[in-house]
């Protein structure tokens, strides 16, 4: 497994992709979850009660970055992929969780879809932690399967 990671991330392009995808998810999520504010000036804050939520965002973003960058490598290597779809679904579900508490997104959803929007928004808020954990679980499986697959394919190639 270490060897597979070593092969992929020995190429600086994949480290850049990893960092890029991480921040692409991390920054919007910490803005939506009200950890980072730009107005009236730049403020970053974590309340003690929200430490778990922040940790899950970091983990989710990191695992998504690994899953996507590894699958990009895999696509380039063997010109086919089967698992990237599920990793993206995991990322989207995880990213959505908890983003709908009292923020403008919830407001838009609720005003657009009424009661159904309110229920959906409420569901995402209440089950924020389990949904994010499930997404992380999906991403771990994706990373594991991709790594195994790459190890096998790399052996075949060599």
């Amino acid at each position, binding site marked *: 497994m270490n060897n597979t990671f070593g092969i992929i991330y020995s190429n600086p392009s994949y480290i850049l992709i990893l960092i890029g995808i991480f921040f692409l998810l991390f920054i*919007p999520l910490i803005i939506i979850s009200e950890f980072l504010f730009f107005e*009236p000036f730049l403020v970053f804050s974590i309340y003690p009660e929200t430490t778990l939520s922040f940790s899950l965002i970091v983990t989710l973003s990191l695992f998504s970055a690994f899953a996507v960058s590894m699958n990009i490598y895999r696509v380039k290597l063997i010109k086919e*992929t089967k698992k*990237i779809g599920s990793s993206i679904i995991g990322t*989207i579900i995880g*990213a959505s969780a908890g983003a709908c508490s009292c923020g403008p997104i919830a407001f838009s959803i609720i005003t657009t879809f009424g009661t159904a929007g*309110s229920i959906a928004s409420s569901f995402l808020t209440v089950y924020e932690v389990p949904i994010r954990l499930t997404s992380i679980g999906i991403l771990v499986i994706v990373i594991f399967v991709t790594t195994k697959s790459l190890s096998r394919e790399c052996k075949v190639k060599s």
Partner: protein
Amino acid sequence: MVDAKKIGVAGAAIVLVTLVAVFATSYMADFETARTPNTEDETKPLHLKDAPVLGSKDATITIVEVGDYQCHMCKLWFEETRPLIIENYVETGKANLVFIDMPFLGRDSTPASEATYCADDQGKYWEYHSMLFTYQEDEIDGGWANANRLQAFALNLGLDMEQFDKCMITDDHRAHVNFNMQMAKKEFGANSTPTFVIVGPTGEAQKIVGAHPYSTFVSVLDQML
């Protein structure tokens, strides 16, 4: 075959990026509202005369909080930031605090707001307000603010239950809550909770969107004092 899969992957990536962009745009639109305050709105008299005020009515600064009693970030702000503001700005007479209801999160939000004004009829608005945020639970409309619980909160505060029940049954304050909801959206430009509008001594207003930490309020308030 390979091309079709590549297209599929690219499509999924585009969907992901689009979703992130939509989320970000939705949030940034809110910043845009805050960055370019409507000068017409700022000069309008704030219809806060009827609102219960926490602190001295003569304070030079008014902190208006737009909130929903089922909003989790409002509870977080209530527990983490509000006590420090009360200690250092409200109790010292520098600022006062006003709460404007924007009950949009669930069906129990409006009755909860109404109940605060029924409590206000008996002089216990802020006690009831605090009780709602203290006992707020995770699930929106999960029963923590249903009619029975609202009655129980009133009972715990020692309110006259006959008067409270009558007030709730006849929806005495429904119009007040609806008015606040409209004011929150139109006058304060709120589209999420909590939103704060800090009105300074000369009528200048600073909008703060979200459950900001105490440090943000210190900076804004000290600038206005």
